[in-house]
């Protein structure tokens, strides 16, 4: 407990969330939130929506690059591993072929590329997302279980410089296709 807590109570508000029932409404809502000047905006949807990255101005390229570099690393490990085992560590004459028979190395090099790219994508997104995360405030949103089924949510966080409890709520209520707007606690 910080002493801070005794003087002014921690603000319990996490942000304001709008609920939609179709992906296009969420997409245009995300566009309009950015146009209105909101910057701490997040969207939740059961499936990827084309153009959402752009609507949210999400241009973080760390994950694609980590995946690409992971793939390159896997490619090198696969190829050099085969070179080491076939040419250096255990040279063995197979059908009179040269020891360094690189065409034969291609399938395993390829598999290693895929494997390492996939694993680095998986673990890097884990790290970037700060997982595992047993608690997240967004789950306090009413009806949020349906974010994995048929509902679409737009969050404007309290941390947004332009956030104002009642004005943000009325902005979200005015969006096309909105079903419900609620203030969510931390």
């Amino acid at each position, binding site marked *: 407990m910080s002493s801070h807590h005794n003087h002014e109570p921690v603000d319990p508000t996490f942000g304001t969330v709008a609920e939609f029932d179709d992906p296009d409404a969420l997409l*245009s809502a995300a*566009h309009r939130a*950015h146009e209105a000047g909101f910057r701490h905006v997040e969207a939740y949807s059961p499936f990827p929506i084309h*153009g959402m990255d752009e609507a949210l101005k999400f241009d973080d390229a760390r994950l694609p690059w980590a995946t690409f570099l992971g793939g390159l690393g896997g490619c090198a490990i696969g190829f050099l591993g085969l070179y080491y085992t076939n040419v250096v560590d255990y040279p063995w004459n197979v059908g009179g072929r040269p020891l360094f028979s690189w*065409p034969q190395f*291609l399938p395993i090099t390829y598999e290693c590329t895929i494997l390492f790219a996939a694993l680095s994508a998986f673990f890097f997104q884990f790290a970037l997302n700060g997982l595992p995360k047993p608690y997240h405030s967004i789950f306090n949103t009413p009806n949020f279980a349906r974010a994995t089924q048929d509902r679409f949510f737009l969050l404007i966080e309290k941390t947004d410089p332009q956030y104002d409890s009642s004005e943000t709520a009325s902005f979200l209520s005015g969006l096309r296709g909105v079903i419900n707007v609620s203030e969510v606690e931390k």
Partner: protein
Amino acid sequence: MSVMNQTSPIPTFKRAQNVGGILFLLGVIGLGIALISGDTKAFFASFTFGFVFWMTLTLGCCTLVYLHHSIRATWSLSILRIAEAGTKALPLMLVCWLVMAVGMLSRQLYMWSNPANMAGSEVLQRKTWFLNPTTYIVLSLICFAFWILTTWRLNESSRLQDETRDQRLSENRASFAPPAGVIHVVLLTFAITLWVMSLDPYWVSTIYGVWFMIYGLRLVIALGIAVVWGLRNTRPFNELITKKLGADVGNMLLGLTMFWAYVTVSQFLIIWSANLPEEIPFYINRFTGPMVYLGGFLVIAQFFAPFLCLIGMRNKRAPHIFWRIAVWIIIASIIDMFWQITPFFKVGFLSENLLWYALDFAAFAAIGGAWVWVFASDLIKTAQRNALIPLHDTRLVDSFREVAEGHAHA
């Protein structure tokens, strides 16, 4: 350029028609000189290169037509009219095939067409039930009849629906196209086996038909992108291209590029590992002389370059870059077919064969010029009735308007 020219694609199609006509004339002159000089064997060899390239593109158009009406995807809707225009070249390709048949009957094109060649080898003796003139002619005619009739039926139904807007027509196509597509794959495999693989009657590769199908489908998607995205400032294409559509069609091109590489490498790897005397000459002939460098260049030009260009989102969403990637793929594919076909007839890149290689390009230009002329003529007709995007299926235009309105609201 006047404002009219900028908004209608017809002047561009007319220019393509003219270029096609000139190429056709130049090619025919080149082929004529070869025939007069009496080297008919070289003539048929070069003609095969031109025939196989343009036939594979035409078959790619057929594949896309069957595919589109089976899956009714929005991405394929954007290039459907391009593929349909390509299928209109089937009668032209039938005429070109007649030249191939003459080459076969006069025993100048296929080693197996001469019984004396077959008699000496037990392996070839056992193949005569398939490699004979009757099978070649009957099977080819069945293939052409099937392709011409089925694509004609689908194209006509699609055109009729533009006028009547009768929804039952598209349901009818959706039940007709899938079985037609399955039969098409079988016939295509037979045709490629007879026309191309049997150029070396000892050689076999079970994946060869698939290679040509993937190559053709990838080529027609690249051609569609080159036309639609290349003419992005003309109507109706300017009301079609969104970032989403670019990403969708670009992902198909990327997927087929990977599939092309997969099939190409698999065939090489299996033959290389087995190291059998009747299989490896195919690659030895293509690794002799400068052809091995051309092959190495193709690994980069056909796979790594387009793969790296298409893997990210940016290039697929930028029309002025996207269509250039498609043009690159078309050029690389032509070189790829050259590497694939010409070593059946002449090994190495010897200086005494230089005229012969020139003849290859004459044949390529003659058939290609006629092909482009037919293709552009059909597109002009389609453009004149304002149907370069199918009128009966408005999903693409709707999604374009939604995006445009979404931005306007935002």
